[in-house]
């Protein structure tokens, strides 16, 4: 066996199928006798439904049925749930409105689900949808995050549209820090609403087998086991043991496919009710309208600072938009994924964070790449930048002065950070970005009539989500451990089952590298199995940069169990003591002898425990045949990736156009299993974060119409929007898992918005909000010059 697979840039096992058009996504699946579904959605942001007349549509050519809330209620199908309980500061539980899978008496955003037409062809379903007459009484929509608490309640019994008013931290201690501060720096920030935009639109196919009474749902999910649990336990679609969810190849998720949607519930139920396969594929505009969106915060924040630059206190006051209903992870995103992270990687002795979550007549908001952590990072890094400027300090030096320096470090809010070296990645980022020569480059840009700016951003995440005891004590409806099964076959190859799901993250390769390293079996003989509730053990899916730290560790632990059993069998076959057997590079060896067995031979013997020479059975007494081990892993703590990013932009003052000229990042993800894959994750995260900073914005007009509901209107970053990113790493291994890994999937999207915005603001010398489009930057520059003229 060659050198360790861990840390190698191994090419991906999954690539060939995708490169040759053999990927199999949900929309690619065609079932015999399948029908086609089309959803009728609300064209209004807020309305009462007075009547739905489906009679004409039901008689249309090819129509099998038209289903509404009436039929849903007949079959006692439950509504969608919010999975994480948040308690307000006054001790009351969060307020959650009913969220039926098909609207019964009211609709609460444009795109809300009203009815389902099922027909023999998609064209027939669409044509018939036009014959469904929905009688709406249109009401005034509540759209803006900042106005929600002063507007009419959109849900009965939810005063001020307020779901919860949550707090974290020691308010009295923080007030003291502010009272004794030499300087207080304040700002108001908007974190713009984004649409995740996985390139594969959502899709679902329900298939009921009347013989076995099994219901199968093929769907675009990051988390099939959780979807099955929710749809069994809360939606009452079908008993869990007869319900199979298959998430085949999934074309990106970024958080938007973590939870079951109304469409999944309705399609699964329709297939069972109609006893025929029902296929639904979302169109892009419907994706814009009904996929959960991300971010959408308004925040007031302030820092208490001593004259020497030491930050002593932080206050954060945020209004978070939940949209029309509370989606599954909507309530944890602006609370426990946000509040504890507002300190960034700074050693701040006191902090207080208040989050008010409001309902509006917009698409539900839930986790999107980073989920809460980008919002926290944007807040603290914009605020630190402003504070440095107001203190007259160098922005880099001001940050360094306040870094946490000793580990483990108990933050004043929640987290106990096990490891890190923040100055190391920050200094490396300054070096790699050539900060010391910035002024020279700025002068060169000025000579061309361009404005050059530099921006810094540092971040810390809490990843490896789990640990179950911690998250459940904070309100999670489930534990977030992970499972794995290593199934050795008699012929020596291995199926690895994981409860995580890969939709771009390259698990097939990374996880196989771990197994190859642990068991000494070639990569080509190891296959990962995921995304099918019938195949692998229950698991908690992929999100929050958790898969490697939690799922990868479960795999490593299952491998350890295989070796443990293998040692017993090898010892028996080699007539040695199990304690003296060594396992190395796929061989069980009796030291100082030529006696050894390969792991393949042991697997074979475990499955075919016949006579082996002198030995009657290869299995010692008490050892069962077969070679298959399961492990569940629940870490003791989160992992804490961190890093430092530096962005340089050049702004054309005549057009307001901002070009990202250079982007440098130095991240500490702990140990890397496959650096090539990690790099790809960083690139993708950066593209999304830079997209948020400069281009992307989900914009609703005052009536609640989503104006940016197609790729013609919502600016998706393209290849020519980016420079070549400069990437480097530092490494302090995580202590919370034996692989020493921290997670890398979200870092780019977390760190880059403030790095870019700090650079833009540095360049133009005035505030501008995200996205810093040409129009906004041009206007900001004009306002600045108008103000100057007035003053003169």
């Amino acid at each position, binding site marked *: 066996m060659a050198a360790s697979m861990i840390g190698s840039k191994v*090419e*991906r096992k*999954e*690539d*060939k*199928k*995708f*490169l*040759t*058009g*053999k*990927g*199999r*996504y949900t*929309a*690619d699946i*065609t079932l015999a006798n399948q029908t086609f579904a089309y959803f009728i959605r609300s064209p209004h942001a807020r309305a009462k439904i007075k009547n739905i007349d489906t009679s004409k549509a039901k008689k249309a050519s090819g129509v099998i049925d038209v289903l509404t809330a009436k039929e849903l209620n007949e079959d006692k199908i439950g509504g969608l749930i919010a999975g994480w309980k948040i308690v307000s500061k006054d001790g009351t539980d969060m307020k959650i409105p009913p969220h039926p899978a098909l609207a019964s008496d009211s609709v609460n955003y444009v795109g809300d689900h009203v009815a389902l037409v099922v027909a023999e062809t998609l064209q027939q379903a669409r044509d018939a949808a036009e014959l469904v007459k929905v009688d709406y009484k249109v009401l005034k929509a509540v759209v803006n995050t900042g106005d929600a608490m002063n507007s009419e309640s959109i849900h009965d019994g939810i005063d001020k549209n307020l779901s919860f008013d949550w707090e974290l931290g020691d308010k009295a201690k923080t007030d003291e820090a502010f009272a004794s501060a030499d300087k207080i720096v304040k700002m108001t920030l908007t974190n713009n609403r984004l649409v995740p*935009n*996985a*390139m*594969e*639109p959502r899709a679902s196919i329900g298939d009921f087998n009347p013989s076995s009474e099994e219901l199968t749902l093929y769907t675009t999910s990051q988390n099939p086991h959780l979807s099955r649990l929710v749809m069994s336990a809360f939606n009452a679609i079908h008993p869990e043991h007869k319900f199979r969810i298959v998430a085949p*190849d*999934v*074309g*990106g998720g*970024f958080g938007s496919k973590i939870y079951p949607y109304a469409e999944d519930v309705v399609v699964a139920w329709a297939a069972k009710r109609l006893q025929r396969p029902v296929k639904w594929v979302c*169109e*892009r*505009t419907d994706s814009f309208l009904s996929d959960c969106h991300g971010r959408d915060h308004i925040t007031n924040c302030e820092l208490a600072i001593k004259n020497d630059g030491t930050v002593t206190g932080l206050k954060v006051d945020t209004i978070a938009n939940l949209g029309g209903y509370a989606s599954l992870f909507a309530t944890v995103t602006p609370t426990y994924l946000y509040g504890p992270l507002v300190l960034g990687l700074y050693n701040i002795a006191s902090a207080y964070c208040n989050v008010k979550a409001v309902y509006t007549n917009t698409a539900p908001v839930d986790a999107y790449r980073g989920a809460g952590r980008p919002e926290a990072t944007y807040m603290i890094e914009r605020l630190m930048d402003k504070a440095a400027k107001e203190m007259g300090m160098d922005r880099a030096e001001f940050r360094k002065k306040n870094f946490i320096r000793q580990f483990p470090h108990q933050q004043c809010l929640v987290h106990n950070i096990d490891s890190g070296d923040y100055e190391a990645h920050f200094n490396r980022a300054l070096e790699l970005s050539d900060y010391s020569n910035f002024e020279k480059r700025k002068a060169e840009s000025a000579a061309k009539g361009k404005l050059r700016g530099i921006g810094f951003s540092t971040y810390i995440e809490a990843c490896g989500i789990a640990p179950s005891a911690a998250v459940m004590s904070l309100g999670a409806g489930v534990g977030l451990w992970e499972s794995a099964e290593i199934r050795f076959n008699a012929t020596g190859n291995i199926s690895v089952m994981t409860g995580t799901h890969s*939709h*771009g*993250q*390259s698990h097939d390769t990374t996880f196989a590298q771990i197994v190859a390293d642990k068991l000494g079996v070639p990569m080509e003989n190891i296959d990962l199995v995921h995304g099918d509730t019938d195949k692998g053990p229950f698991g908690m899916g992929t999100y929050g940069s958790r898969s490697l730290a939690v799922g990868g560790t479960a795999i490593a632990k299952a491998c350890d169990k295989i070796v443990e059993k293998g040692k017993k069998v090898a010892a028996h076959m080699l007539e040695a003591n199990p304690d003296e057997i060594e396992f190395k590079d796929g061989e069980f060896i009796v030291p100082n002898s030529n006696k050894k067995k390969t792991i393949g031979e042991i697997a074979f013997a475990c499955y075919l425990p016949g006579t082996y020479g002198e030995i009657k059975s290869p299995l010692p007494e008490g050892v069962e045949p077969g070679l298959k081990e399961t492990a569940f892993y629940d870490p003791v703590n989160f992992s804490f990736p961190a890093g430092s990013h530096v962005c340089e932009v050049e702004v054309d003052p005549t057009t307001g156009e901002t070009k990202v000229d250079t982007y440098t990042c130095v991240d500490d993800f702990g140990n890397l299993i496959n650096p*090539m*894959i990690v*790099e*790809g994750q*960083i*690139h*993708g*995260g*950066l*593209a*999304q974060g830079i997209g948020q900073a400069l281009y992307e914005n989900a914009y609703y007009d005052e009536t609640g119409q989503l104006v940016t509901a*197609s*790729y*013609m209107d919502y600016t*998706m970053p*393209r*290849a*020519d929007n*980016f420079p*070549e*990113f400069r990437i480097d790493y530092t490494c302090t291994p995580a202590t919370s898992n034996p692989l020493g890994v921290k997670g890398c999937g979200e870092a*780019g999207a977390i760190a880059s918005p403030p790095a870019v915005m700090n650079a833009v603001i540095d360049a133009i010398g005035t505030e501008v909000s995200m996205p810093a489009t040409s129009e906004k930057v041009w206007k900001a520059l004009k306002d600045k010059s108008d103000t100057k003229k007035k003053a003169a």
Partner: protein
Amino acid sequence: MKSINLTINGKKISKEVEDYTLLSTFIRENLNLTGTHIGCDTSQCGACVVHVDGKSMKSCALLAADVNGAKVTTIEGLAENGKLHPMQEAFKKHHGLQCGYCTPGMVMSAVDLLKNKKNPSDKEIREWLEGNICRCTGYQNIVAAVKDAASKM
């Protein structure tokens, strides 16, 4: 209904199609070649790019009936005799794909670029691929892959 004759991935076919059938729909549903993907409904994302008479085209912006008589190559027709095209090899080597959804269109576009320009610069590659959206890779490894393929073709 219209009767059309096409050469798809080197194979001659004759089919009846509705006048309104898009080439992308025809490829996916009538020919069951599901490697050509649909990512938007506005001809923006490029996941459906195929070659029509050797040129990269968004198949969602063409009617099947309008390409009657053409030679169409989809991602399934790019590898020859099981051997990956140098562009496919390069995407693999440089990790130019993650979820794989935009990949077929991206590869087909990139192959056409190299027909037009033997050794494109980074800037030329980025500008050419402006019609293909990828949400996973941040494009950097795609650019590296195209450059590498250019050096080998």
